[in-house]
């Protein structure tokens, strides 16, 4: 299959994302004869062949959904060999490096290939990724994955330590991405790898001291438009919240003339029409006043209020979230 090209029907050898729930997905490569254990029981790979991506599959104790792989789904389901970049940072890197079909990109290190998949998706079918990894097993596994995912024609994997040996390529790249412990060491070679007409560079570092050294070196090497940023994602859970109304005790004086019971009914959006009708019956004189009140509340309403509670929908952020991934430093090299 080609990971980066949608197809309709699942075939032997395809990578499929099995969706069991929002944070419960698995990536498998379909191979007749194999089975996959899920919490809904065993799934025979052969049962997937011939059905469509997006179809439901019945397992002994429930069903799961087959999804077409995307670099984003791969990122959350890939086998970790290293720390990886997640989609929030990946998106910004892709945008800030000006990636598009035809871009030639240099990346180091390959790691678990999370970013590599996203880069390849954005630059194919006429671009190319040169990715460098100093760990031989990781380089080999990445190469194997690219092959299985049918995207190996867009990528060259090299087992090489770019800090000590350099990239070994000159005047080829539109963009360079560095995720190294000492990126400043690789910068002179990265500069050479960029095309003479200039290009963009990104360095990802978790620590500010690394950023500091990188920026000094970038300035020395005549990179311009340096900009360092951090990007975090907040997910919201859409929930219905009901806050109990406090018992403020009995009314006295002026407030007693303004019965709150009636107000509570008026504030109820759904009952607005009903209220108008009843007020008609009760007291014609009050009608105009009450209509006014009800329309006002109609606009103000952000939830439902009654005597005992205030009920509304809210986007609730998680109480714990990742507060730091890394600093992304971008720079431009103008034509030489």
């Amino acid at each position, binding site marked *: 299959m080609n990971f980066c090209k949608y197809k309709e029907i699942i075939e032997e050898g395809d990578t499929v994302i099995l969706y069991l729930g929002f944070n419960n997905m698995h990536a498998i490569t379909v191979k007749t004869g194999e089975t996959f254990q899920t919490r809904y029981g065993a799934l025979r790979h052969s049962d997937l062949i011939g059905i469509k991506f997006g*179809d439901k599959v019945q397992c002994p104790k429930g069903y799961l959904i087959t999804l077409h792989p995307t670099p984003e789904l791969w990122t959350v389901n890939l086998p970790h060999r290293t720390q990886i970049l997640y989609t929030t940072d990946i998106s*910004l890197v*892709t945008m800030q490096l000006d990636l598009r*079909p035809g871009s030639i990109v240099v990346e180091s290190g390959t790691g678990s290939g999370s970013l590599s998949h996203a880069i390849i998706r954005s630059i194919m079918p006429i671009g190319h990724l040169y990715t460098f990894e100093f760990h031989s097993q990781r380089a080999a596994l990445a190469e194997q994955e690219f092959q299985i995912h049918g995207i190996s024609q867009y990528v060259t994997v090299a087992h090489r330590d770019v800090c000590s040996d350099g990239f070994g390529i000159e005047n080829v790249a539109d963009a360079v991405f560095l995720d190294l412990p000492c990126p400043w060491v690789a910068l002179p070679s990265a500069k050479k790898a960029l095309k003479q*007409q200039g290009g963009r560079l990104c360095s990802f570092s978790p620590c500010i001291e690394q950023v500091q050294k990188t920026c000094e070196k970038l300035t020395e090497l005549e990179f311009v438009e340096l900009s360092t940023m951090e990007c975090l994602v*907040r997910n919201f859970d859409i929930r219905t919240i009901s806050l109990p109304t406090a018992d403020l005790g009995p009314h006295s004086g002026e407030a007693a003339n303004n019965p709150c019971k009636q107000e509570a009914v008026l504030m109820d959006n759904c009952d607005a029409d009903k209220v108008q009708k009843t007020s008609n019956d009760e007291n014609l004189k009050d009608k105009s006043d009450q209509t006014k009140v009800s329309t006002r509340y109609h606009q103000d309403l952000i939830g439902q209020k009654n005597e005992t509670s205030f009920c509304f929908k809210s*986007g609730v952020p998680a109480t714990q979230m990742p507060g730091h991934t890394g600093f992304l430093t971008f720079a431009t090299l103008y034509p030489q």
Partner: protein
Amino acid sequence: MESTCVNVIKDDSQVLIRKGENIKIFRVKKGRDIFMDNTKFSLDGAIGYPFGTTFDVVKGTLVKVAKGSNKEIESAGKDTEGTQLKDNRDLYDLDSNQKLSKEEIEKLKEEGVSGNELVEHLIENSLTFQKKTEYSKEKYIKKKKRKHVLQLTILRPTTRLLCEMYSKSAQKICYLRVDTLAQILTYGNIHAGLTLAVVDTCQGLVVGAVMERLGGFGHVIHIYHESIPNRTAVESYDFPAEKMKTLYSFPLNQVNTLTLQKTTYEVNNTCGSNSDEATNDTSEQMDVELNANKDVCDALNVDKDISEKRTDVEDIDADKLCEKSVGKNKTKGKRNLDESERKVRKEQRAKEWKDARYLLERGQLDCLIVASKLHPTPIVKALLKFVAPSRPIVVYSQFKEALMDCGVSLREEGGMVNYRLSETWLREYQVLPQRTHPKIQMSGTGGYLFTATTLAKS
């Protein structure tokens, strides 16, 4: 090679001009002056230079800056003695600190003293400069240069730079921030070869960003609000004709007239092998390096008719561009178009809609993006049925509540998984030796996103 010619500034190129933090877009027109920072100058001098070249404005023309010429002045601020101990206890804010009067500065300018030289004069005549710390000297020079040196860099328009430009007038693009747009493109899995629909009321910035990522392969249908599509941003990209071919238009107020063409869908299913062949053709075609730049449509038989019809559509686009570039006098004349011409236009538009309608009604969209100032739920509900199974949808809104409504309604209807409502936060840093900290100002909001994945229709 496309890359080499694309990289040179030509007459009629769209260019972004960066001066410090300020970015503006212009179209190079030989002999025409532009205004920037209260200065009038012509861009003629830039023609023939590669994008990314820095120029000085000298007497209304552009002169390429020699490399290294900026370095001397910066070293003027460098102090050889150990002056880290200096502080500002003896510095007072007095007009007399600068010996040169406003008039004298103006006179120097008139005499043709260059910006850099003028800054040197200012340093020489500053009573306080030498008492400043190294850091504040640097700041002083930077500030004076910003004011007196008219130096600018000409850049090729890209999504990144256009976002930076629009960030100063974010209301035009529904407060869509660069990182949010970046998320839209990745969560939409936008890449070469897709067919997708984009509802965009952000000046066409989202459509343009998608077209950049399609790179001339695929189809994007801009579903537009109001009577004519507003795509100022798309024009800024200066896409060549073959990339403009990937763009189709369809009005929002005709969406309810769309019906899913079951027949096409079934044909595709039953003759699985046939359609597979077609897709294989496309991928092969796409693999043929660079040559593939010509429309992928050729490979897909179904699309052949469309690409033929497209020629007419291009004519309209060209017309529109002409109208835009000509001065205001001509726009008056536009109103006086005679009846027949108006009729021709109407027919052309109808033809364009027909192509878009065909692509939509096939029900094989690879992605749906809604990024607008409108209530998103009805739009998403109306278009969702045209999206193929296991494909992402991405909805942007400036307001979280609008997307909450979208999320709740779609969940009720079912038929999707991976619902996600999110927001990104972007903080920039000043990185300088001993002075690294987050920037004092940051964007408070870049809007919200709702994403989900479609399933097979049962």
